[in-house]
């Protein structure tokens, strides 16, 4: 908090995430060619774009799963640097949900959810298990607490992954194509959880092609193409009257 007050004036104390001219290069491939955007607290941002456009890379730079090569990223008032303590602090404030769930297969659902609260937040076992049960209730699968991930369906696993991320009581949630690996009948159950989360005022960035979800809960929709942020608009405007030709073409392909 003190850090936020310290340099808050220059980057706007009200912004949860500030990205300025973020660049990332893999070998000779420019994944991000200078992306700048701001996310306010409680805002829900959906990112769309063709594959290879850098949208996943961008949200992965926000919690430093990818190191940005140039530019500036400030999360909750803390600038992301190479300082590992800094990074771990920021990561514990950001929940992330992956396309392939990435649950820990050797731990039960309960252990998956309580792992980080107990070992990072240092909560006692009892408290972390109570919080975990509340979260499992919230995502609708309290009866699965003692099972192993392999015993659950894809939709259930993804809901556990959301509960696991929420258990750290993060200020920001990142979703990296959370429904892409799911069977169609399971997509809804995961989107419902995400909608509910959006309504509680969580700051969210979702890489997702679920247009219905974007229309319903997004405050802004971002369009990425070849490492650039091309379009940034509220959903109505984005889906009905996009400004860029590239956006129009992309929308015509997915709608």
């Amino acid at each position: 908090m003190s850090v936020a007050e310290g340099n808050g004036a220059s980057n706007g104390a009200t912004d949860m995430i500030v990205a300025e001219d973020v660049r990332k290069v893999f070998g000779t491939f420019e994944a991000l060619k200078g992306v700048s955007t701001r996310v306010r607290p409680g805002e829900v941002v959906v990112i769309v774009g063709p594959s290879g456009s850098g949208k996943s890379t961008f949200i992965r730079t926000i919690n430093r799963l990818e190191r940005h090569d140039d530019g500036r990223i400030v999360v909750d008032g803390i600038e992301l640097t190479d300082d590992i303590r800094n990074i771990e602090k920021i990561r514990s404030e950001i929940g992330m949900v992956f396309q392939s769930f990435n649950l820990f297969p050797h731990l039960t659902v309960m252990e998956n959810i309580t792992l980080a609260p107990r070992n990072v937040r240092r909560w006692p076992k009892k408290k972390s298990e109570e919080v975990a049960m509340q979260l499992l209730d919230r995502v609708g699968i309290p009866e699965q607490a003692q099972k192993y991930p392999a015993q659950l369906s894809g939709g259930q696993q993804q809901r556990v992954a959301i509960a696991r991320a929420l258990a750290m009581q993060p200020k920001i949630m990142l979703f990296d194509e959370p429904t892409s690996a799911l069977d169609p009948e399971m997509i809804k159950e995961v989107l419902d959880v995400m909608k509910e989360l959006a309504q509680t005022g969580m700051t969210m960035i979702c890489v997702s092609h679920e247009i219905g979800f974007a229309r319903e809960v997004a405050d802004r929709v971002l369009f990425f193409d070849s490492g650039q942020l091309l379009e940034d608009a509220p959903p109505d405007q984005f889906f009905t009257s996009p400004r860029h030709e590239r956006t129009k073409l992309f929308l015509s392909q997915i709608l």
Partner: protein
Amino acid sequence: MTDADKKLRDSQMILGLEEEVAPATLPDEGLDLRVAPRKEPQTPGEWIKDNLFSGPVNSIITIALTLFILWFGSKVLHYVFASADWTILKVNFRSYMTGRWPLEELWRVWLGTYAIALLAGLSRGISVIPFVFSRRRLVVLGLVAAAALLVELYVVTTLFTHALVAGLILTIVLGIYLGRRFRDVIPRRAVLIAWIAAYPALILLLRVGGPNERLWSGFMVNLIVATLAIFASFPIGVLLALGRRSTMPAIRYFCVGVIEIIRGAPLYTLLIFGVFVLPLMLPPQISKPPNIVLAVIMITAFSAVYVAEIVRGGLQGIPEGQYEAARALGLPYRKMIRLVILPQALRATIPAMISHFISLFKDTSLLATIAILELLRQARRASAALGFAGRSMEALLPAALLFWIVAFSMARWSQRLEKRLGVGER
């Protein structure tokens, strides 16, 4: 009970599931379980026809193998009970087990053995895995017990030793009983700690006030050296494997160097190096450590690099997503490795790891080359005695059997471990 229920229960009995799955709870789940029709149990005659004589080729193989087994079995039986003279074993049995260990200090070895027996019994007792007395198991156990009894009655000559052996068996039974009785009172962790503390305690018991290391010999040396090398090389190997994948070049090259250099040398060379060169590298104030200590150091180093390569294989099998998920939760590196990566990586390596440890245990017979009187050396010494000329078969076979018993037990233990840790495997 309906017909379907009955069929279901029958099939579960065959699978050995009758204890875990109570059929009564299944309908609650709203599951409609139907069991595929199963062939009714056959008569022994039918079984033989189906399994042994199902075609001309199979029939020939069956007959040939049966003849071979009969021929070989009769040879073995004839050898064991008629032509062999086991006096050499009777005379030398103590020297096989403890070698030149003085008789008046033998109580230390017995006390240590009793302690381990009690601990082993306890562990088995508190284990939640039930001991299933299947018919086949009972037959095997009966045969083994009968053979063991026969050997015991032949080899052991004094009443006092008979009593000690009987006491040992009773101690195991007592351990199992206590473990069962106080299963809910004894914390599992306490038993684990007891096992970890047992080793240094045992060494202290043997050494403090006991005989000089030069007198340590026989099978107990094989067991002590192998156990220490296994448990010391495991953590070192894990660290080497992690170091090999480190992003810091200095650490990475150091680990790669250590692994490749030691892995390239035969164990025999390493032992010679340990005994003749390693002491020269020590500061002059320190007198030359006993050979057994040097041997443990070298065998541990040898084993550690193999463990490192086995663990590296396990680490490579962990998807990148596991690291990312752990990092995204804010877990620091060490906790990520300890809580997320290693538990998965090590589980995958159990079979290879136990194989390596079995071969390491057998490699302890190389200690004979650096003047340590381990089991194989003792057996060969026994057969070299004048009165037993031409009896080297009788001298060496029991040594081989002892090695086999331990190696086989390790293999079985590995299977149990795999089964127990198999839960939640993706």
